[in-house]
């Protein structure tokens, strides 16, 4: 058991938590933005998966990791556009379209991958890291937290930016109102449909980058269905975080730690079935729900369609 407490083990645990947690965090952050605006985005899994595929493809063909992330964002948004048109403009059920987009993205990416690469899974080169001077030489947390690819720092920065936008900008207020009382926002002269559309597109972009992170940084390859429920975990994170971006980050790291614990334990020579570890985060969140159930608050207008002047 002493092997559990070596620097190598702890470093790989923290690093794994971060690598597994960042995509969850981006998805959760995206979901939070669209939930604030009153759109329950069940299609986030599809947005992530399409982002993963697009990001991988662009990075593979251009050799540029940054273009890859850009491709991921565009890929995620490409799935968000039908969501915006069908659910926000036309008012179709958000749950139906969300599930349709997820199924469609799963099928389409698997098909496209099949026709491009057949059974081969080409690998991307390892992503270069950007050590932060000073901090990166700390024991354990240094190499795990401060010697990461730049996108990691940007992702964490996105949490702060989102928190700032929510709290201190006109757009943040509009988002909040679009989810709480769309009619009031409308009366104030702001176009609810536009606010929600922008929110859903940002969601798609963030989820797409999250997916691209999985393919480019996490795995280095694209495998069909590789997001494997990460988008749904994002939904859970967003709902648990109750509108606070920082809580999304904390929750994502907790989930990430649980997901990466298996690998870390295997490194340390302890073999526990992956499935046991994977149950932990869900069991933890459920315990919280049982203890503090009633507090999981959601925007009142979540999941409802807003028609201008209907009320």
């Amino acid at each position: 058991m002493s092997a559990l407490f070596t620097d190598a083990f702890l470093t790989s645990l923290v690093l794994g938590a971060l690598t597994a947690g960042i995509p969850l965090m981006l998805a959760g952050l995206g979901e939070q933005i669209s939930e604030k605006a009153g759109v329950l985005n069940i299609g986030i899994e599809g947005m992530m998966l399409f982002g993963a595929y697009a990001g991988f493809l662009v990075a593979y063909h251009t050799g540029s990791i940054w273009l890859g992330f850009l491709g991921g964002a565009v890929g995620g948004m490409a799935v968000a556009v039908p969501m915006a048109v069908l659910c926000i403009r036309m008012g179709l059920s958000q749950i139906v379209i969300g599930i349709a987009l997820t199924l469609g993205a799963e099928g389409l990416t698997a098909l496209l991958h099949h026709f491009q690469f057949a059974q081969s899974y080409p690998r991307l080169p390892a992503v270069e890291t950007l050590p932060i001077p000073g901090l990166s030489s700390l024991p354990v947390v240094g190499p795990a937290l401060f010697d990461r690819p730049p996108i990691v720092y940007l992702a964490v920065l996105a949490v702060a930016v989102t928190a700032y936008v929510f709290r201190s900008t006109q757009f943040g207020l509009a988002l909040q109102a679009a989810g709480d009382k769309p009619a009031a926002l409308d009366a104030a002269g702001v176009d609810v449909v536009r606010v929600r559309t922008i929110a859903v597109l940002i969601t798609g972009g963030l989820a797409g980058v999250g997916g691209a992170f999985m393919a480019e940084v996490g795995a280095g390859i694209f495998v069909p269905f590789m997001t494997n429920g990460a988008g749904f975990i994002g939904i859970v994170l967003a709902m648990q975080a109750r509108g606070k971006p920082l809580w999304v980050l904390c929750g994502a790291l907790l989930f990430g730690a649980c997901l990466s614990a298996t690998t870390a334990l295997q490194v340390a020579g302890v073999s526990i079935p992956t499935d046991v570890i994977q149950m932990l985060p869900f069991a933890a969140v459920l315990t919280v729900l049982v203890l503090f159930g009633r507090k999981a608050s959601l925007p009142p207008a979540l999941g409802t369609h807003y028609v201008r002047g209907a009320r």
Partner: protein
Amino acid sequence: MSNTHTSTPDLTEAARLDRAAASAARAEIWRARGRVALLGIGPVIGALLLSALVLLALGVDPLAYYGFVIERGLINPYGLQATLTRMGPLLLLAAGLIVAFRAGIWNLGGDGQFLLSAVVVAALCPLLAPHLPAWLVLVVGLLVGALIGAVWSVLPALLKAYQGVNEIITTLMMTFLGVSFANVLVKLAFRDPATTVPQTRTLAVADRLPRLFDTTVSSGLLIGLVAVIAVHLVMTRTAFGLKLRIVGANPRAAIHAGLPVPALTVAVFAISAALAGLAGAVEILGVQGNVRADWNPHYAMTVIPLVFLARFNGFATIAFVFLFSVLSIGGESAARRTGVPNFFTLVVVAILLVMLGVAEYLDQRRRAAGK
């Protein structure tokens, strides 16, 4: 027609008016039925055409692909029997979803309820088989499957009923938890010591659900059909169904009307999850015979769109489940022959959902414009 305005309408006149009114009403009913049929069939045709474009873009001949799908899924006797067998568990899952969705409860946890009960049934029945008569093993298996499904929904049910916690999160989490738990059970507790790959003991083919007549179609199909039709009738024709629909349409009004909303919520969860569990049992007792580690067919997630497509109507659900079964069984064969992977079925279902939504939107706009 000139005598319709005579000042003294006689009996035959009244009878003629009656008849005219009746035939107008009949025409109205037929027009409504035609509209519903058009709303159902139009999107299906549209989706098949759009999917054909996807195939063309991938360099595959759509006619050949659909030809193989229809040949294997619908015409070839073995294929058709496989299609019908696949319908059994899907129909049971759909029946569970109809109850929940009509009552306004989003039970997205079907996959966890399905898989966990499948694993328990697969572990239990081969052990019971040597000691009990075959029919009793099956009955016990089905009951245990339903029970396990229901048990797995207790937590979301109580949280929703008494704490108001959104069931979408809780059922999704219970699904992830259930899928992992099922794998843990297969790998650690219920593992068949006789095999090297982690899987449960296998129920002998002779001990499985009886086949229908002289075919390979599992009687699971019958169980599924009975369940869907029963659920449809209960939801549309009984007082209990009406109560559930009121809860679904407007929970606040339901409380005002004096309905025991929390108790009904728990009941809906129990029924819905028990049907999902029953689906797991039927899949094991009728088709698989055992559960391999990491097996998860994601049936519940794929059935959700079908139930929506059918607008929670039991009979329309049967039609859509049949269509999906043809596509998925036929797709497996078409995949081998045309090189299009099975995932294509997912794309078709997704396009179908979107097309149906759009058709409904256009219909609403048309009617709004007509008024």
